[in-house]
């Protein structure tokens, strides 16, 4: 993901999420039911969704793997040690500096890195970091986008103008460029928001940076939907009953945005994980020696000549994970998007 994953996200939003199309065929079913039923029929999407869950499960089990199978942790160096692989004694890192490749046994299952650290262990712990940042950032983006989109779309006028210009400002930067600028600047001095103090080393910094960068891509389409929804009869009815603005926004409009949000979320997580990797690769995300898939790829690329597996292993893990989210996200979109029927008929 070099730049503008925006285009992918922008295309992900169904123009209007209308359930009436389904109702003509399946009478009396709620739109969510119809969507879930469509999703259930999409075996490929479900399989990839399951793959994502498996990866998440594996990363959650990282401490168990490290303790019970690999007998090390993600930080310990085994530079000078020798291990026995299938009866042969080998250096973890050869005197020439070349680290051991995959042993496919308990210790150093996927080999060691240049510092003699177990790659498999680091891969799982790195996955925790990447997934936490990706999911955290996506959830935070969603929260900010809902607030921004609802305020701008509901109040219109100057509120819309101010929020719109702010979003334009973020939008005008190439994604990665803004990411490293903010990431580097914040890592240097940390961040102070009122009583809240975030340390420069904290994983919260890349999470917040990524979250803010993706807000325009989600807030703009949500705003458009709110603009249309606020003119609907049910909003008028609520207003006639004396409901206040907040009440209308949260109990009338927000539920109608839910399917858009559900469609967005997997794709947002995928893009956030990719951006985390890019930022860590450039040294503006997760700080070493903490592992993340991005930092591991970065290390691997630097030492690719001494052992290509250093770059290949974390890269494949990252691609599998992002691919799983993308395919699953595609399935979710097809399920919630009425045009999916049109597409399937071809």
């Amino acid at each position, binding site marked *: 993901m070099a730049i503008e994953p925006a285009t992918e996200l922008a295309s992900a939003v169904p123009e209007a999420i209308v359930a009436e199309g389904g109702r003509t065929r399946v009478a009396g079913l709620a739109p969510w039911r119809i969507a879930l039923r469509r999703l259930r029929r999409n075996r490929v999407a479900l399989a990839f969704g399951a793959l994502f869950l498996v990866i998440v499960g594996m990363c959650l089990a990282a401490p168990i793997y490290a303790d019970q199978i690999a007998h090390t942790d993600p930080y310990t160096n085994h530079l000078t040690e020798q291990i026995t692989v299938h009866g042969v004694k080998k250096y973890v890192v050869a005197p020439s500096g070349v680290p051991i490749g995959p042993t496919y046994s308990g210790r150093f299952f996927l080999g060691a890195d240049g510092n003699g650290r177990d790659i498999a262990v680091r891969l799982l712990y790195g996955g925790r970091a990447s997934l936490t940042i990706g999911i955290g950032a996506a959830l935070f983006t969603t929260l900010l986008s809902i607030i921004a989109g609802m305020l701008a779309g509901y109040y219109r006028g100057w509120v819309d103008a101010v929020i719109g210009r702010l979003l334009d400002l973020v939008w005008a930067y190439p994604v990665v460029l803004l990411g490293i600028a903010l990431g580097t*600047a914040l890592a240097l001095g940390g961040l102070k928001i009122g009583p809240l103090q975030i340390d420069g080393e904290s994983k919260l910094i890349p999470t917040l940076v990524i979250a803010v960068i993706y807000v325009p891509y989600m807030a703009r389409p949500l705003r458009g939907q709110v603009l249309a929804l606020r003119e609907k009869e049910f909003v008028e009815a609520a207003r006639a009953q004396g409901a206040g603005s907040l009440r209308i926004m949260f109990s009338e409009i927000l539920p109608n945005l839910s399917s858009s949000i559900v469609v967005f979320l997997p794709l947002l997580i995928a893009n956030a994980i990719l951006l985390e990797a890019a930022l860590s690769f450039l040294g503006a995300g997760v700080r070493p020696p903490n592992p993340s898939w991005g930092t591991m790829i970065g290390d691997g690329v630097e030492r690719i000549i001494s052992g290509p597996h250093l770059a290949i292993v974390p890269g494949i893990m990252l691609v599998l994970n992002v691919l799983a989210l993308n395919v699953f996200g595609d399935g979710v979109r097809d399920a919630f998007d009425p045009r999916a029927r049109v597409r399937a008929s071809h």
Partner: protein
Amino acid sequence: MKRFVIRRLISMIAVLFAISIATFCIFNVIPNSDPAQRLAGRHPTKGQIEAIRRQWGFDKPVYTQYAKMMEKIFTGDLVSYVSQVDVDKEILQDAPRTFSLAIGAAIMWMVFAIALGLYTAVRAGGFADRFLTVLALIGISMPVFWIGALMNYYLGFKWNIFPNGGYVPLTEDPLQWAYHLIMPWTALSLLFIGIYSRILRSNVLDTINDDYARTARAKGLPERQVLLRHVLRNSLIPIVTLWGLDFGAVVGGGALLTETVFDLQGVGQYVAESIAQLDVPPVLAVVMFGAFFVVVTNTVVDIIYATLDPRIRLT
């Protein structure tokens, strides 16, 4: 039309102004640390810091510093904090490399995306469609710096098919220029081919049965003509818009990952290195340069879009 262009130009200047302030703030307000201390090195004396502060004008209020820096950008005597090299000169030197990368990649991804999108749409539902759709999804899911590094290692270093890094100016030797850029072009294109071909596929599927396509078929046009002349032309409109936007972003520093991995020494790599050293002047200048291209291409695309498609009103 005239009013539209003028309005766009005014908002363009406003956005550029806002971007310059935002970028300046990112590096001067957020880090809570003194730029003079950063410049002075590891163990400076108080006097050294004071001298640097006065020399660079850090003792002045923030808005004066900002005004001074912007003035320097436009007069062309902005220098880097770290290396004291003239920033505008450096950008001018790097720009042809970035443009070479962007132009070649943009052509490459458009051609492949059209071919792939059209083919998968025509074969929708079949094996070829599914296979290529999965490939497109993989292309979207791969970080460019990862696939770029692997290409560098296998195609460049190990099997020696393509040159490992380096850049030859187009004016010197067009063939070598292209030969050296094939790997970066490919790496950068993969993502966009994935995105564009999928959008094009669904656009074609949406329009393939539209009334005008049926009319074209009914008057006896062969299917190939219907597809290329009628369906494709209409389906291309949103893609061309994206094309402009993405091209602007790539030129404006968005390709910094590709440039860094292939060591192309383009504008993006320059800004990435400057950010790592917290060297504010080059960052500000490149971001302005980049934002300028992004905003200009956005405006040009809007204008072209409006003239191409009379259904779009200029507001």
